[in-house]
């Protein structure tokens, strides 16, 4: 039995169905990310787990204790679930030290020492403890919010887009620091975000949510390379989706013959490749030469942006076109290292690495 079990959770606001039956299991000590576009119901789900709202139906069980099931409902303050909100939600009328110590007992013996220790753990300077929340930067506020939540030794930590208010640079370093911190403390964590890169890099388990339901739940690699459908594929990153004819573990498509990850016998299907699987090689000689199954393309557009460049290529030949009409018109858009930026009009050889994924 897992640590947290959500079973068939639903919640509606008037005619709006925010959650349409959510099932999720979370292992103790793991990190789960729930990712989806805004308005998909992920914040509602978090509020149900935290206990700010009751589900219309369904069950929430944490470590064997039923938190919500029909009429039975444990309110937020008896759940022992920590929360770090989007903007930290620090109490503006209290000092940083009092914010961190808010959930501790007033007469706890080593209160000051514990506050100092928590501040140290989240990487805050001791001098900051006497200040007020509005004197702190966004990143510091988030660290305080985290320390405050950890002071209550929560069984489960909920992070509600805690990094979205931070600058890009600070964001990834904070994410890494928080992940390590919670890992060391052994606290099971759920992160809610609309940023797919954040979800993939933070979590052991990612759940893609859309319109109140999970589209797919799995490990980051699973979801990225083997998405269930086109929506999940495109939500988690750029994707090249091509029609293909599949036989004997290979797909025949406009990019030639590519190994696929599914042994299922399907005649025609759509396959997905991540753009980084498509390789461009400079050709030494002008024009196309070599074996007939070699694939060539012309660079039609190139946008240089420093470390990376965005290249648009149009295929020039096709060994076995299943749907020739669709190919000539739509170029492939690829991101390549800026140092290898080709010139517009250059002809390049196209190759594919790894396997293509067959979409359901």
């Amino acid at each position, binding site marked *: 039995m897992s640590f947290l079990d959500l079973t068939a959770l639903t919640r509606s606001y008037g005619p709006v169905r925010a959650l349409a039956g959510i099932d999720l299991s979370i292992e103790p000590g793991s990190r789960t990310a729930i990712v989806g576009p805004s308005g998909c119901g992920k914040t509602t789900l978090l*509020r149900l787990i*935290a*206990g*700010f*709202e009751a589900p219309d139906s369904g069950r929430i069980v944490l470590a064997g204790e039923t938190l919500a099931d029909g009429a039975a409902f444990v*309110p*937020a*303050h*008896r*759940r*022992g*679930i*920590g*929360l770090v*909100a*989007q*903007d*930290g*939600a*620090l*109490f*503006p*009328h*209290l000092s940083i030290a009092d914010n961190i110590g*808010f*959930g501790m007992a007033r007469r706890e013996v080593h209160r000051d020492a514990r506050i100092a220790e928590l501040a140290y753990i989240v990487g805050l300077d001791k001098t900051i403890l006497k200040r*007020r*929340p*509005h004197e702190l930067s966004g990143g510091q*506020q988030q660290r305080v*919010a985290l320390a*405050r*939540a950890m*002071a*209550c030794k929560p069984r489960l930590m*909920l992070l509600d887009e805690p990094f979205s*208010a931070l600058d890009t640079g600070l964001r990834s370093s904070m994410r890494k620091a928080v992940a390590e911190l919670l890992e060391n403390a052994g606290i099971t964590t759920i992160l809610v975000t609309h940023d797919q890169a954040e979800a993939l890099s933070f979590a052991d388990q990612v759940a893609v949510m859309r319109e109140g339901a999970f589209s797919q739940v799995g490990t980051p690699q699973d979801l990225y390379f083997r998405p269930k459908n086109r929506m999940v594929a495109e939500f988690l990153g750029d994707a090249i989706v091509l029609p293909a004819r599949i036989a004997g573990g290979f797909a025949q498509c406009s990019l030639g013959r590519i190994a696929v990850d599914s042994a299922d016998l399907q005649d025609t299907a759509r396959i997905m490749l991540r753009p980084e699987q498509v390789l461009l090689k400079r050709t030494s000689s002008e024009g196309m030469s070599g074996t007939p199954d070699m694939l060539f393309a012309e660079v039609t557009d190139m946008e240089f942006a420093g470390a990376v460049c965005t290249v648009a290529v149009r295929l020039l030949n096709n060994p076995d076109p299943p749907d020739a009409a669709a190919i000539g018109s739509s170029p492939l858009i690829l991101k390549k290292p800026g140092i290898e930026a080709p010139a517009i009009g250059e002809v390049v050889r196209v190759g594919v690495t790894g396997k293509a994924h067959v979409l359901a």
Partner: protein
Amino acid sequence: MTAAADKAAPVTFNAARSHRPMPWMAAAALLVSALALVPLAFIFWIAARTGWAESYRLIVRPRVGELLVNTALLALLTVPICAVLSIALAWLTERTDLPGARLWSLLAVAPLAIPAFVHSYAWVTMLPGFHGLPAGVLISVIAYFPFLYLPVAASLRRLDPALEDAAASLGLGPSRVFLRVVLPQLRLAICGGSLLVGLHLLAEYGLFVFVRFDTFTTAIVDQFQSTFNGPAATMLAGVLVACCLALLAFEMLVRGEERYARVGSGAARLRPPSRLGRMTLPALALPVLVAILSLGVPLVVISRWLIAGGTAVWKLDEIGLALGQTLFLALAGGLLATVAGIPIAWLSIRAPGKLQRVLEGLNYTVGALPGVVVALALVTITVTVMLPLYQTLATILIAYALMFLPRAIISLRASIAQAPIELERAASGLGRPPIRALWATTIRLSAPGAAAGMALAALGITNELTATQMLAPNGVRTLALAFWNFSGEIDYAAAAPYAAIMVLLSLPLTFLLYTQSKRMAGR
């Protein structure tokens, strides 16, 4: 790089200096502030003229002690009751699913439309034996609690629910969340509202005369009526001023330097109202009871007297004259207060600095002085120095302007802040001289706010009694004065039409206050 920055700095500094506020604006602001200081200076002048020993004898005597005890008891009982009542009502109307919350919220502001002495008149004519401290406290609470309800309800609406969620997730139950998170954030609103109630308690005259409860203000007016402008009245006024200043200082101390705004960015989510459930009916009892006491009693009593008086009390010529004079005084006084407020308000937005902060603090402090002090000062000064001005229109209008200047400044400031300086600069850039640029942009744009401020001052003047009866020119009989004279003669029926008209005149402005407070909270 650094050298270039250093070189550039003086240039920007000069540029900023060259855009100095118009010197005549600063001069006008100084002049208005100097006028506002007259009542304070007057007390010292009289004290000096009377001799310090004699002044000391007049201040340190048993009568002053009695009045101090009365005032302290009144404030210490009324303000906390008002605060608790307002917080409870605000919570019920803003945070719960109380049936008809909107209506109860409106009804909690409505008592402001009834002048305090009309509240008192209603209670005394209904329960003739009801007097002294208990009557003073009860009537003060129902007449003044909206001053606390308005800011508390507005703050409660603005609070970020995420803070309460955070507190709950840290293991605090609902009542402890209220005590440790919600209440501390209401502190500014509670302090400000309590100060307003306290200042009204110190300044009110009619209310306490009806219930035969002596305060400094009633004692000063008594003294003034018996000895005209004797130093005894002035020294009492001096103690009253000291009480006001102490109250202001105390409020500043309690308020502290805390910041209670939301720290984060983005919009706060709306909080679903708390369910009252089985507590709905008991909870309804509070707003119902408050509405009965604060609105039902005065309205029923006024109606009863109107019915008892029949058509005989509606002497239309007298009433019409009083109404006309009241409206004229209210509009002229309101206009004067607004015009006098423009320089200070303009400076505080366009050229904030040390001078402006001093002037503004000074004006708020002086504006907190009771009308009786302002009136006493103007009477004494006109009688001793400028006799031709005694009991003239000019003097009473100046008194009104001084008393209601802060109301005008608050509205003006808010509206000038909404007219961007860039427009004024653009108008200057298009060739308008400064005064015409100001007229074409800022004054045009801030006109609605100025009108609101003028209306607020006019409402105050309409219901003003203390200063009016001391300063009114011969033959002037405002609604408040006529009401006061009739009820002084125990002709309660004849007083009723005047009470009814004052309430009717105040209704639109009270509604304006209500909608303004809703808008301030962003809803």
